[in-house]
């Protein structure tokens, strides 16, 4: 199967001397649900933002759907970006607008000229937006201001524009980092189900190892800008975890059932 995304020796140096990515290479195919884990500053965000050129890379090539991302400018770059939806930790909605208006922002890349500038959506797009809100369980909130929603609801709205783009790839930058455990589960379930149903490849940056193990088909472990693990969740062992986080397992708050035993042992 032709890979959707291909990193070919990608490097990124920031002007302040930080090497965020060091010759990173991997491929991603349709239908994969990949979690990227690693400590803060390991290059997770840079990796994600290199894909749609929110951050320009310094070396190597990012291939997206057969096109080299770093070579694109202006209109061509915007057209490529439509194929990649993105979900953020802080939802990044426009809070003074209605929920539906925020959802329809996902179509702006397809609207030309005056229509795009004034946000005049077609009736089809509006209907699709309403259907999507129904699927997310937010049909009643379509005409509420985005600022009126709770954190979990805001993140559910945050998924909608990315899906509206009709993407081939979905990037999620720590989507559950600001959410309570129950909302976090809702969001992860939605991400898995919606991407599976639409056959969208998905990359999720995560701090929660237990979530990564539970949901992903594949895990990439980053440490200091290098891939130190790339495999299936079952292959993840304590030695690998130590390699990724640079400290032994007892010093990590991992959560989930696997950790309960050690936690109670510490209490006693």
């Amino acid at each position, binding site marked *: 199967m032709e890979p959707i995304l291909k990193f070919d020796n990608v490097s990124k140096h920031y002007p302040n001397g930080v090497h965020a990515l060091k010759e990173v290479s991997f491929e991603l195919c349709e239908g994969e649900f990949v979690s990227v884990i690693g400590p803060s500053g390991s290059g997770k965000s840079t990796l994600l933002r290199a894909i*749609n050129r*929110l951050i320009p890379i310094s070396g190597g090539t990012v291939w997206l759907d057969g096109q080299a991302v770093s070579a694109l400018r202006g209109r061509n770059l*915007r*057209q*490529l*970006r*439509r194929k*990649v*939806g*993105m979900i*953020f930790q*802080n939802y*990044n*909605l*426009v*809070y*003074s*607008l209605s929920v539906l208006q925020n959802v329809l*922002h*996902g*179509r*702006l*890349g*397809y*609207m030309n000229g005056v229509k*795009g*500038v*004034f*946000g005049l959506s077609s009736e089809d797009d509006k209907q699709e937006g309403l259907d999507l809100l129904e699927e997310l369980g937010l049909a009643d909130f379509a005409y509420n201001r985005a600022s009126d929603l709770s954190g979990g609801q805001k993140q559910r709205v945050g998924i909608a*524009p990315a899906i509206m*783009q009709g993407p081939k790839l979905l*990037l999620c930058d720590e989507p559950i980092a600001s959410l309570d455990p129950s909302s976090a589960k809702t969001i992860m379930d939605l991400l898995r189900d919606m991407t599976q149903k639409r056959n969208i490849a998905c990359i999720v940056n995560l701090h929660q190892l237990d979530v990564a193990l539970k949901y992903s088909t594949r895990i990439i472990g980053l440490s200091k800008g290098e891939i130190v693990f790339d495999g299936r969740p079952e292959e993840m062992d304590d030695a690998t975890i130590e390699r990724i986080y640079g400290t032994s397992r007892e010093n990590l708050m991992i959560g989930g059932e696997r950790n309960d035993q050690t936690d109670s042992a510490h209490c006693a």
Partner: protein
Amino acid sequence: MNVNTMEYSATAKARPVSGKKPSIPVKCRQRNRFIPAFLIGVAVLSVLSLLYLEIDWLKMASRVGDIGLVFWDLAHLDFSNMDLIASSLVETISIAVLSLLYSLLLGIFFGMLAARNVFRLPWLSVLTQSFFTFLRAVPTPVWVLLMLVCLGMGPEAGVAGLCVHTTAFFTKSFAQSFESIPDETIEALEVTGASRLSIFMNAVLPAALSQIVAWAGMRLETNFSECAILGMVGAGGIGYVISNSLQGYDYGTAGVAILLVFLVAYGIERVFVRIKKKFY
């Protein structure tokens, strides 16, 4: 006992020992030296200004009584010229509203060019900002006088002159409002493949709208009071009535006009306070 003496010696070290109960210091150990220097500077400048202007204090003191007299005359409101006052007041309000409306549209446009985060072209922002800084440095009455020369006497010159300064003001304040929109919000639309102009119209402008309303309310108030002054240089409106009747010692008419200016300005403020509350 031992502890007590130690405590006493510790506190005594901080301030001189005397018979009276010593006061406990409250200020920071490291004082800011800028403030005393600033106060001394202000004092020196005041003395120099007084010397330069050669103010005749005796003459001023002898005329202080007249202030009360003039206000007493102004308080004898004379409503006989009410039709003239009313029509010029409406004219003043119209000038203020029109100049506000045009400046709002121009200010949003130029504010968009001046904000660094909309088109991400530093040279465009710097160019727009510096051009409008120049326009802002020249006060409104000077712009109105210039427009009077260009367009002739009348309200058109008032509108045009006010517009220049108001647009310059809006450009700066709107650009600041646009720049205060979080970069992540813009990023979220960038990834959809939307163009810069479409990002501005669909995300930046709606997010900044409540701030724009607040600026507009403040500026309408300012423009209205400035309009009252502008009448005196010949741009029509209630200022012309005030200056004319004052010069003709018709204090009653001037009193009514001044009172109305105050009432309208106060009304505008109240209305915008309410609008702002609804917006949040």
